[in-house]
């Protein structure tokens, strides 16, 4: 083969691989949309499940997921952002800080079912929160913590060091420098990381399996100590645990979950794009 043919073959293979990556996404989207579209209606989204989940809607599951994700973010964002600030702005580069950073990277690689068991052991049993929204939120929060810390660290590190130098040289303290010269410019990145974490939290089943998710509840949760239904778990239940559920209900639920995650991710992408355009350095 001459150089030209090699080049052509290489490009073709690389292109085909790229297409193969995109294809499953499109197929999943197409099938779920095709089979689930007919179930979507106002009643499906805002109604209570009826007749053994074979009629009515998925509102308790949707609301439950929103509660859980909100709780997870309320817990994980302050914790994650503050620890990222400490790691980037204060900690010295020594064995301890390297160990912490390694731990955070590894936290991201822990399988989600392990988080579920952790939540069961710590929040449900040890702290005695029971199987509740609180336990589930905290478990999801810990799961998305590495996502938020990593995104926040990257956002903080991408703020030019000259901003810090200038701020210090004008007599600002370290905290003033962080507060006024660094954080405002890292905020878009932190926000993006948070929304990606949100997307991740809303789709996970394993962490909520033992800590909060209810098979079926006739009423909406009233406090953080109540159990709740949640979209991913509801999907699992109606797909595998209860025989004879209408197909369009199963795919409709999947579609709602998928749309929720897609909307969150899309928001993150748009925000990032808009902030990048505004950036002037």
């Amino acid at each position: 083969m001459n150089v030209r043919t090699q080049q052509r073959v290489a490009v073709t293979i690389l292109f085909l691989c790229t297409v193969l990556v995109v294809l499953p996404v499109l197929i999943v989207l197409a099938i779920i949309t095709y089979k689930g579209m007919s179930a979507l209606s106002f009643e499906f989204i805002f109604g209570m499940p009826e007749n053994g989940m074979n009629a009515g809607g998925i509102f308790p599951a949707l609301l439950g997921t929103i509660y859980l994700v909100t709780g997870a973010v309320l817990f994980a964002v302050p914790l994650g952002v503050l620890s990222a600030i400490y790691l980037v702005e204060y900690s010295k580069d020594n064995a301890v800080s390297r160990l912490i950073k390694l731990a955070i990277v590894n936290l991201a690689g822990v399988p989600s079912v392990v988080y579920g068991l952790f939540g069961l052991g710590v929040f449900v049993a040890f702290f005695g929160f029971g199987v509740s929204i609180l336990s589930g939120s905290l478990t999801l929060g810990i799961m998305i913590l590495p996502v938020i810390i990593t995104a926040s660290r990257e956002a903080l590190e991408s703020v030019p060091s000259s901003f810090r130098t200038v701020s210090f040289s004008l007599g600002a303290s370290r905290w003033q420098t962080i507060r006024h010269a660094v954080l405002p410019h890292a905020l878009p990145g932190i926000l993006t990381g948070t929304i990606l974490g949100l997307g991740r939290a809303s789709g996970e089943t394993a962490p909520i399996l033992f800590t909060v998710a209810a098979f079926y509840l006739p009423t909406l949760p009233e406090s953080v100590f109540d159990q709740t239904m949640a979209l991913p778990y509801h999907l699992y239940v109606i797909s595998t645990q209860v025989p004879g559920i209408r197909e369009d209900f199963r795919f409709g639920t999947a579609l709602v979950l998928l749309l929720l995650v897609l909307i969150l991710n899309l928001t993150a992408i748009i925000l990032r794009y808009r902030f990048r355009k505004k950036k002037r350095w």
Partner: protein
Amino acid sequence: MPTHIAVHDLCLHYGDTCVLRNLSLEIQRNEIFTIIGPANSGKSSFLQTLNRLNDLHADFRKTGKVTLADVDIDTIDVEQLRARVGIVFALPFPLPLSIAGNITYGPRMHGVHQKRALADIVERSLREAYLWDEVKDRLHLPAMNLSGGQQQRLCIARVLAGQPEVILFDEPTSGLDPISTARVEETMLVLCKRYTIILVTNNVAQAARVGTRTAFFLMGELVEVGATKDVFTRPSDPRTDEYVTGKFG
């Protein structure tokens, strides 16, 4: 003229590397003290010692003593010290704020918040840096929109806003065109009536143009210090002669 800054037996290290050895000199009030020398001769490190910006480097160490108006700078609150000893960097680094926001950054960090007081500071500093007439109608536009020379004068104004006693210039015109350079030099010559100025420059001619006294640093050592005229016309050390006449550097 009274001594403003006195340096006794100063040695600076980054990790195991010594960048300045046994430096002793005195800088007088209201002079333009220029420091010349090739790269890596310890000029900038010396400058950044005077307002303790070096302290931000984890592996920086210093021995010896520096006094500002007879007070050891290590005993002065570091935030106060940096307001009293301002610095203008080689590149203009405007913060991504408005023109006015850049000027008031330092004062705001030191607790000035009244609108009237801040507006006065903006006008006074910009006038002192000869930038007022060019920007007075767009104080609330981003500072990044200004030209390079204007940005550098904005940085000077930003330092002046903190009402410093000493202004350090770290090769302030290395990124500027000749006309902007001339304007910055003129500004310095006026400012030295009210402030003590220390100018580090790679541009030997600039040191000759604006300097009151000049020091020549080489490889972390002070080779010679004296009145600028003397250093340039009859240097006492042959290395100074070679450097200022352009034989090396």
